């Protein structure tokens, strides 16, 4: 084998082999751990075997470990985006490429995002380069009030994006839910209750197994949820059912509280009605999404212990269910004791999460407004969404035992235009190239004096 051929073969092998987690330390950087605390300068993070070993001040770099000088940089956990449609569409307006919703499908709750998530989607590449390392991604309600079962993914450059399939179910109960349900909120509520009752009955008669208690936190790799849709084929069902068997089976873990239910609601009264569902279905594990008027019922939400994935900067009466929206919504809810993450789907792209968090810090300097401290705002795009999607202690924090998801930033990550210079997922350094970066490089100049731009790559 010639030297050149050998080199080529070796590099091809390197491409084919899964990238290995590196053991490394970053020293001298400004560290934000994601836990709500303020950033600290001149800190150290140690990663070994794909996990964070230590992070903070006065942390010693183990002997022999590669140490990267982080002077002038910021180090944070990877951002956690909830909720998104990452990996489900190439171009949203190109219907052939868009798997986000399925208005003509015979199924609804049974829809499962996991098998159709494309880790090579440009949106995943672009958002990885923006420092987002984990996300909740889901299909959205269209033909039914139920959107289907969302997945928890990582944005790593490998073929396995799904950390946890069927991690949560989604339903919409406000204006949109009412329209989908046939024309009114009353219909949406009737459909919802009927669906949960059909699921309860099916779960019992088909003896669909489940856990006896809630288990929200994901234990990676060893607690893959039961796919309830594939069980109970021989059970009897009454003749007047509305749901397909597949949809009813998909809702069994919801009614049992084994699968969180993300409820999209905005209006204060809709939030109250949603919280009241717990009286009828006590085991529901609710998460509110949207909640533009959440500040008006913040104490009720806090008392119910229901977390919120809230629209960060909505301040317009976009609809009659958002008349009281204000950018101070999240600050007021947090002050009332509600656990709030910034909703990644309520912005142009999830990569604006850090800009939105920065804006909440800005509000703390506006008279009469309610904002967040820097640490709280950063937590609202890291540890808090991680907790809500079942990754407490595993993602969104730099603490011993957490996955080695790190972002090294060129500046304050909440400040405009700050960008990652390095991204690690599970301790593996990630490529940051994508369609946009390639266009950026091609058009650094417009010189075509020798050849057309098409040869510049």
């Amino acid at each position, binding site marked *: 084998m010639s030297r050149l051929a050998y080199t080529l073969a070796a590099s091809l092998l390197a491409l084919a082999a899964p990238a290995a987690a590196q053991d490394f330390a970053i020293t001298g950087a400004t560290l934000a751990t994601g836990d709500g605390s303020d950033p600290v300068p001149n800190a150290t993070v140690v990663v070994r075997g794909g996990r964070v070993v230590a992070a903070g001040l006065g942390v010693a770099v183990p002997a022999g470990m590669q140490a990267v000088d982080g002077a002038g940089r910021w180090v944070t956990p990877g951002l956690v985006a909830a909720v998104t449609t990452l990996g489900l569409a190439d*171009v949203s307006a190109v219907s052939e490429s868009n798997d986000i919703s399925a208005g003509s499908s015979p199924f609804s709750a049974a829809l499962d995002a996991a098998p159709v998530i494309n880790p090579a989607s440009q949106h995943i590449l672009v958002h990885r380069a923006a420092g987002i390392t984990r996300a909740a991604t889901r299909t959205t309600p269209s033909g039914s009030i139920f959107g289907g079962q969302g997945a928890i993914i990582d944005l790593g450059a490998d073929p396995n994006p799904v950390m946890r399939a069927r991690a949560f179910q989604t339903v919409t109960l406000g204006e949109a839910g009412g329209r989908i349900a046939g024309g009114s909120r009353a219909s949406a509520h009737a459909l919802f209750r009927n669906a949960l009752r059909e699921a309860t009955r099916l779960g019992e008669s088909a003896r669909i197994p489940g856990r006896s208690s809630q288990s929200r936190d994901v234990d990676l790799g060893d607690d893959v949820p039961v796919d309830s849709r594939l069980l109970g084929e021989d059970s009897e069902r009454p003749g007047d059912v509305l749901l397909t068997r597949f949809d009813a089976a998909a809702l069994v873990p919801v009614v049992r509280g084994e699968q969180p239910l993300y409820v999209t609601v905005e209006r204060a009264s809709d939030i109250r009605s949603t919280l009241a569902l717990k009286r009828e279905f006590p085991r529901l594990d609710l998460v509110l999404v949207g909640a533009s008027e959440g500040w008006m019922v913040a104490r009720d939400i806090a008392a119910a212990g229901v977390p919120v994935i809230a629209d960060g900067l909505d301040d*317009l009466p976009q*609809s009659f269910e958002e008349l009281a929206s204000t950018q101070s919504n999240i600050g007021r809810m947090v002050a009332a004791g509600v656990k709030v993450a910034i909703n990644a789907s309520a912005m*142009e792209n999830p990569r604006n999460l850090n800009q939105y968090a920065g804006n909440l810090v800005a509000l703390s300097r506006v008279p009469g407004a*309610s904002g967040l401290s820097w640490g709280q705002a950063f937590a609202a795009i890291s540890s808090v969404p991680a907790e809500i999607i079942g990754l407490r202690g595993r993602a969104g924090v730099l603490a011993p035992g957490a996955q080695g998801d790190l972002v090294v930033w*060129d500046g304050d990550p909440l*400040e405009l235009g700050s960008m990652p210079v390095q991204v690690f997922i599970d301790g593996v350094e990630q490529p940051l190239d994508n*369609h*946009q970066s390639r266009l950026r490089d091609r058009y650094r100049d417009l010189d075509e004096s020798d050849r057309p731009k098409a040869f510049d790559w």
Partner: protein
Amino acid sequence: MKFDLRTAAALAGAALLSACATTGEGSDGTNGAAYDYPDNPFPSTYQRYPGAPTALVGATVYDGAGRRIDNGTVLFADGKVTGVGGADLAIPAGYTRVDGTGKFVTPGVIDIHSHLGDYPTPAVDAHEDGNEATNPTTPEVWAEHSVWPQDPGFTRALANGGVTALQILPGSANLMGGRSATLKNVPSRTVQGMKFPGAPYGFKMACGENPKRVYGGKGRMPSTRMGNFAVNRQTWMDARKYADGDRKERSLAKETLAGVLDGDILVHNHCYRADEMALVLDMAKEMGYKVTAFHHAVEAYKIGDLLRANNVCSAIWADWYGFKMEAYDGIQENAAYLQREGACVVIHSDDANGIQRLNQEAAKAQAAGRRVGIDIPDAEVIGWITLNAAKAMGIADQTGSLESGKMADVVLWNGDPLSVYSRPEKVWIDGALMFDATNPKLRPVSDFELGQPGEGDVK
């Protein structure tokens, strides 16, 4: 690799000003001299509100025209800027001093692309007044006839975005969407009470996917990009015939098109792809009109040289991409690459939320340039959302920069406007204090919001 952007931008700016200087200067911008063009039947009734002679002292001033003054002084009285300078600028007697120490002053922010009022909130069907999507060419419609002055979005743009003037455009369903309206961002009972005095009209055109999708979907021409051009060209030929005639017969459509051919009405062309923009420029030459600005222009960076040569502005987002096929090649370096070529950059919103953060969008676009070695000074970046927008709207002789004699449209920011942590503290329009974050009563509340949850809340 670094470029002398200051020089390049200055050259482009000079060229643009001369282009703008050819626009009509009638009482409301539509009185051409060469023919008996009808007077504007919906004249502005806006008159400035009272304001105290004010001296902003001690702040960092970005004048909008590329100048930064540390520890600056900005004076205004009777609605006009009366002085801009350093700490040594004398403050005349009778001026109220406002301490700007640690704060920043810019001209009022201007959004060249807004649908406030014609797609207002609440965004219910009954309010959908932005696209007359019944014919691919509707030059006869005027956006001002759709503007609902009670749109709460105007107040958010003022309080959170420091927006003092904006252009309301028809939507992009049609190849020719109609006339735009340029407004002062002042609360008013009527749209006439918001109309920017003396501003020329704009004319909305649209390339690409939207017109062919809307009309192809109805089984009508155009259903292709070539159809788009054919319909446009034939419409211009018919307009030219009218314009070259005696113009005695009234025709709403032809009068507007003739106004464009005369150079009195400025063309704002929604267009994403570089190749299509290049074709439009040739069509404009063929038909004898000028494109003032391409809007959205996500691929403008591919033809910055061509856009500079044609003195066309690009009104763009910082980072929108990929939501439709023709936006697939959007990159964050768009603005910086245009600036590198000396082409005119305007940051626009096209969005009732984005209009509240134009300063932030500009800062993101600036940072993308910095990462590829294109350093654009903060003072020039502020020009993307002030003077450049004013130039492309034909109102740069009145607003868009802090210069003596111009309208006192001024924002006092509580910090660096290119930082995410800053917000407007006070906003003056023609010298009248229209928003004050420190005074809850100095916050406009639209009729729609009275008696509703959140009335008068911080927003």
